[in-house]
């Protein structure tokens, strides 16, 4: 493979943590601009701006074992812990893998009598977004007798349905819904088929 060509973009990715990263980047940029500004003011006017001298004075008056000192230490610990967890917790996949058979193409160079060469040399990835799985599950419920309305949420391992029904007995509807959605997801080619759960409530 040509080393200059970047690797293909992953179709099944984990959260990129862009929110904490953006907040941290903006804060870094703001601190950087503040430091440059303070230095320029000092070089031009000969005195430091207040936003530099005041925090230093505050720190010079604060003892380590004072309430403010302990508060600062705990705040630093908490910020560190949150940033560390944001970086280390992998998060859920954005999509679920789908089953797909590789396809051979006859007539391509190198096909010979083997019935063709694969149309894709390297990896073939077929996925379905979690949102799509949820929509598919909710849409399947709409076709099940007794279901008044349905909504679904999906993670990479589990699909949960919230179903309302006009029937007083909910156990049958729950059974039909779970079985129906599981069959649909299996027919869709999800591999492995996520666990399906349902909460059914009677419509007032």
């Amino acid at each position, binding site marked *: 493979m040509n080393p200059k060509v970047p690797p293909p973009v992953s*179709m099944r990715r984990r959260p990129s943590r862009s929110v904490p990263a953006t907040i941290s980047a903006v804060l870094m940029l*703001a601190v950087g601009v503040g430091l440059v500004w303070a230095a320029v003011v000092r070089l031009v006017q000969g005195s430091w701006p207040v936003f530099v001298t005041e925090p230093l004075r505050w*720190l010079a008056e604060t003892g380590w074992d004072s309430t403010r000192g302990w508060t600062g230490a705990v705040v630093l610990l908490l910020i560190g812990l949150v940033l560390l967890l944001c970086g280390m917790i992998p998060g859920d996949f954005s999509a679920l893998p*789908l089953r797909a058979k590789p396809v051979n*193409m006859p007539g391509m160079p190198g096909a010979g009598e083997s019935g063709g060469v694969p149309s894709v040399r390297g990896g073939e990835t*077929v996925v379905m977004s979690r949102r799509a799985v949820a929509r598919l599950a909710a849409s399947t419920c709409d076709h099940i007798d007794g279901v008044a309305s349905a909504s679904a949420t999906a993670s990479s391992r589990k699909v949960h349905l919230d179903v309302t029904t006009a029937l007083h007995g909910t156990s049958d509807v729950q059974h039909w819904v779970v079985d129906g959605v599981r069959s649909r997801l299996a027919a869709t080619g999800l591999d492995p088929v996520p666990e399906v759960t349902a909460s059914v409530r009677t419509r007032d």
Partner: protein
Amino acid sequence: MRHHSGRANRTWLIILGILFLAAGVAAVLIAAGTLERLIGGSPGRSDRVLSGGQGLLSGEYAPWGMLLAGVILGILGLWWLLAQIPRARAAGTFRLQEDPAHGVTVCDPQVLASAVSHETEQLPGVVGSTVRLRGTADEPDLAMKVTVNSDADVQGVIARIQQEVVPHLVSALEVPLNTFGLEIDASSKAGAPGGGATVSSRGTVVY
């Protein structure tokens, strides 16, 4: 379909987290007096957090040091901020020649991507599609996002993309794809005819 800076984000968040955590642990150890007992000459619990702060600022090189620190921090922050913009990583112009002495054939990958998208959107049950070609003419990567109607036969759509759409692109490029990525999304919108559109139950049945 787009490249996000997930790995860089996690790396920088972990580095920052370790730095903040180390500063917090050091502050707790100092405030508890543990550090003073362990390492002689380190700040004690009754000391001030910053002793001689004004001395730091009165140094001759203090503004230059602060300027340098500010520029480095600002550039890092700006780079990190810009890295949050998702990258398409689209391919450059494909050059399809065997021997440049006999002429050069160039092809805009966007044209091929549009053709693939158009063909995909004709498939039953498909609502829309986004197609990106990456890599080179010799090692093309195809990434597709296909939105289907939520009642469509998903495996049928995938099979037809694999057996019709992809081979047509491979025939046009005359090389197998390097990688192929397909993301299926679902929508309640009606797809192309023949793909599980809901039919009203009202009507007259003629025998």
